[in-house]
């Protein structure tokens, strides 16, 4: 299955993958231990739904982290 994480194309072998599984595969340790939030196809997904959210092919996942701002 094909998905996009932060705009980058990623291949998943499993036929059915949850958001939690995809994040554990594609985030490094630093990122996993940081504060982050997720949207799929432009819709916010709360942390409590990571395990329950099943990905579809070509889903676009945005993982955002804190940064300075004005």
């Amino acid at each position, binding site marked *: 299955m094909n998905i996009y994480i*932060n*705009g980058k194309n990623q291949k998943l072998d499993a036929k059915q993958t949850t958001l939690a599984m995809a994040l554990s595969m594609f*985030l*490094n340790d*630093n*990122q996993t231990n*940081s*504060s*982050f*939030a*997720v*949207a799929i196809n*432009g*819709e*916010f997904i*709360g*942390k409590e739904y990571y395990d329950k959210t099943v990905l579809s092919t070509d889903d676009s996942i*945005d*993982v*955002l*982290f*804190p*940064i*300075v*701002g*004005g």
Partner: protein
Amino acid sequence: MSLTIYGQPLKSRLLIGSALYPSPQIMKQAILASQSQVVTLSLKRQNPADKSGAKIWQYLQEVVEQCQGHLLPNTAGCKTAKEAVTLAKMSREIFKTDWIKLEVIGDDYNLQPDPIELLSATEQLINAGFKVLPYCTDDLVLCQRLYDLGCQVIMPWASPIGTGKGLMNPYNLETIRLRLPEATLILDAGIGKPSDACIAMEMGYDGVLLNSAVALADNPVMMAKAFSAALQAGEQGYVAGIMQQRQTAHPSTPTLDTPFWHQPGVS
């Protein structure tokens, strides 16, 4: 005299950004020197190899803790209401605050807010329980509509973000103050020098939000102190009551009992 944002009293009337400083250390020193208790920040994608993001976040948490302050996440970069609403929800989860500095940009050249998308996003976010601080143009009717939707705080621009041009349309800003006496008005964006902030406060604005003017100064820490003093001076000037301008000169020194050689006809 303190500023209140959505029921939260704050010691300083300055809200300050965390971007563009020469280093994280200078950012921290400048924010603390400003005495601000509201610090803006944002969210973005992160390259897995880049570890600087986590460090910045740690710095910001330390700063906010030291100044007993509050984080104010923004929706910078959003161009539609949908994008802004999604980003606001992501921010709320991470930063554990329902405050959101709502930015929806309609033009890339001057980063001018899109009033239509801004109103739509404001309505959706208020319905979702957010306390919205909308960044908007100095359009009276737009500000009125935002207030009517339930924004207790409204943040018209002084001039486009990062220009440092100061107050482009003082008449518009004064009119907004006059017509929305109950709203908390924060002048946001375009502030270049401490006197700009002072003028806003003399108009009766409740506060000022800025970033570049401090971060891009030769000495950001000293400039942060200068802005802090300028806001206090402007606020005290407003509260003290500024004299009416007069068309003609009036002597300051009493003219009664002037010496005889000042009398007409005496040489």
